[in-house]
C-alpha cells in the first residue's frame, strides 16, 4: 500500500534533519518483561491456590511473593534508569497528572510492590522460623500478623490485573505508534503475564505435586498458543492502518527484526507449546523447565521487536 503511494507520488526526501532513532529501547523491553513475571506469578499462583491444597506446593506461599518482589524491583529499577532525569521521578507523586497511564501505572505498581513486600516478609518469616534471629522485630511482627497474608492476598491478585495491563494503556496513549493502538495489546499483556508467571513458577515447582505441575503446563500451553495466534493475526491480517502496515514492513521485509521476531515466535511460543503439552502427559520436569526458559527468552524477543519497530517509522 505504502510502496504504491510512493510510486504514485515519485517523491523523495532530499534534505531533512536526522530523525531520532529508537527512543524506548532494551530497558523498556526488560521493564515490560520483568513486570510480566512480577504480576504473572501472582495470577498463576492464585489459580494454583484455588485449585490445589497448600501442602501440594509447600514453598509457594513464600516463593511466589519473593519472585514477584525481585522482578517488580527489576521493573522499577529499569523504569527509573530509563528516565533522562531519574531523580525527578518523585514528580509523578508530587505533581501527578491523572490522564497519563504512566502516572496511574506508577502509583498502582508502587502500591502493588508494597503489598508484595508485606506478603514476602510474612511468607518468609513463617517458612523459616530462624530467619532474622530472635531479636529481629520485623520477622517477629510478621509472624504475629501471619493472618494478614491471607487477608490482603485477594486484593493483591485483583491489583495484579491492572498492573499487568496498564502498559498497554501507555501504548494506546502513544498515538504516534499505530501498531500499539490495536485492542489486542491489552490481551497480549495478559497472556504475557500468564506465560511469564507460569514459566517462573515451573522453575520453582520441583517439589510440587504432579497435578500442580500439570496445571502449570496447561496454563503455559494455553498462554503461548493464544498469544502466538494473536501475533500471527496481527502479522498476516492486513486490516490495519497504513502506518501500522508500514511498521510491520520492518519485519516482513527481512533483516534483523525479522530474524528476532521469528526466533521469538519459535523459541517462546511454538516449541514451548509442544514441550508443555508433552510434559502434561509425561510429567517430565526437565522438559518442562526447558519449555519455561524458552518461553521467557522468546517472550523477551517478541516484546523487543514489537516495541522497537514502530519507532523506526518517520513521523513527519
Amino acid at each position: 500500500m505504502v510502496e504504491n503511494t510512493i510510486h504514485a507520488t515519485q517523491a523523495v526526501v532530499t534534505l531533512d534533519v536526522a530523525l531520532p532513532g529508537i527512543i524506548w529501547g532494551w530497558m523498556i523491553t526488560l521493564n515490560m518483561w520483568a513486570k510480566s513475571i512480577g504480576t504473572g506469578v501472582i495470577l498463576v499462583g492464585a489459580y494454583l491456590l484455588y485449585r490445589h491444597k497448600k501442602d501440594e506446593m509447600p514453598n509457594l506461599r513464600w516463593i511466589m511473593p519473593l519472585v514477584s518482589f525481585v522482578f517488580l524491583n527489576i521493573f522499577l529499577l529499569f523504569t527509573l534508569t530509563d528516565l533522562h532525569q531519574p531523580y525527578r521521578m518523585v514528580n509523578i507523586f508530587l505533581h501527578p497528572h491523572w490522564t497519563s497511564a504512566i502516572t496511574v501505572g506508577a502509583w498502582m505498581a508502587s502500591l502493588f510492590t508494597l503489598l508484595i513486600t508485606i506478603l514476602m516478609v510474612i511468607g518468609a518469616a513463617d517458612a523459616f522460623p530462624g530467619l532474622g534471629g530472635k531479636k529481629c522485630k520485623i520477622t517477629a511482627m510478621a509472624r504475629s500478623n501471619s493472618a494478614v497474608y491471607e487477608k490482603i492476598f485477594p486484593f493483591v491478585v485483583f491489583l495484579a490485573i491492572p498492573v499487568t495491563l496498564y502498559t498497554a494503556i501507555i501504548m494506546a496513549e502513544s498515538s504516534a505508534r499505530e501498531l500499539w493502538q490495536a485492542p489486542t495489546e491489552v490481551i497480549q499483556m495478559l497472556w504475557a503475564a500468564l506465560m511469564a508467571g507460569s514459566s517462573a513458577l515451573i522453575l520453582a515447582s520441583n517439589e510440587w505435586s504432579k497435578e500442580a505441575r500439570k496445571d502449570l503446563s496447561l496454563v503455559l500451553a494455553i498462554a503461548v498458543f493464544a498469544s502466538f495466534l494473536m501475533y500471527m493475526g496481527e502479522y498476516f491480517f492486513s486490516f490495519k492502518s497504513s502506518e501500522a502496515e508500514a511498521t510491520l514492513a520492518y519485519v516482513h521485509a527481512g533483516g534483523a527484526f525479522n530474524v528476532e521476531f521469528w526466533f521469538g515466535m519459535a523459541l517462546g511460543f511454538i516449541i514451548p507449546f509442544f514441550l508443555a503439552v508433552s510434559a502434561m502427559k509425561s510429567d517430565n520436569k526437565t522438559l518442562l523447565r526447558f519449555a519455561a526458559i524458552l518461553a521467557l527468552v522468546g517472550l523477551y524477543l517478541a516484546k523487543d521487536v514489537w516495541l522497537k519497530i514502530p519507532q523506526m517509522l518517520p513521523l513527519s
Partner: protein
Amino acid sequence: MKLGFLVDLNLCMGCKGCEIACKVENDVPLSSWRLRVKYIDIGTFPETSRSFTPLRCNHCENAPCERICPVSALHYLENGIVNVDSARCIGCAGCMMACPYGAIYMDPETNTADKCTYCAHRIESGMMPACVVACPVEANIFGDVEDDHSHISLYIMEHQGAVQVRKPEKHTNPKHYYVGGGSQTLDPLAHERLEGYNLFNNITHLKHVGDPHHGVIDRFLAPFVGHGKVDNDSFMNFNKDAKSSQEGGH
C-alpha cells in the same frame, strides 16, 4: 483566544530563515530542531519539482503529548499554546512516543523534552514568533483563529478547500494549517526516505536521544559531580589546542 499557525507552501522558498531564527531565539542545541524545513523532490527527471515544508509542533487542541505527560510538564496555556515546563520534565519520552508529528525532542543539554512553543515568551510581550518575523515572503501566518477578523482567519476563509492539517485522522485537532500542500509533502508515508541519501549530510537517524555524553550512570551521578558542558564549540572549534591562542597564533 486560540492561537494558530498557517504556512502557505506556495510561498515558501526553502530559505530556512525560520529554522535559523528559531534556533537563535530559543537557544536550540545542535542535533535538535523545534522547527525544520524539509525538502522533497517530486516527479521523475526531467519533470521534477522541489517542495519545501516547514514542520513544527501543531499545538493540537486535543494534544496526545499533554495527555500522556505524567507530571504535566506539557500543559495548555490559556491562548491554546501547548507549553513545556522543562524544570518539571522527568525525561520519560512518553511525549515523543505520543506526538504523531515527531515534533518533540530530548534536549541534549538539559535532558528534558522540548519543542516549539510558538515563542510563548515573545507572544507574552506582544511580539510575533521569531520564525514569522524572519520569513522573507510572509509564508508564515500567525494569529487568533477564533477571531474572524484576524489575518489567519481571513487567510483560511480566502483559501477554503485548500487548507489542510497533518494527519487529521488522529483526531488531535491541530492548530497548524497548510495551504498548497499535498499528500506527497504532508504525509510522511507518501515520500521515500532513503537511508543516508541527503543533500548535505548522510545522517538519517541520530544515534542518541538526549545528551550523547550522558550515559545511564551519569544520569544518577550528574547532580553530585556535574557533567561536561555540552556546547556548540566542537562544531566550529577546529583548533582545540589552547596554546595557539595563548601564543598569539591565528
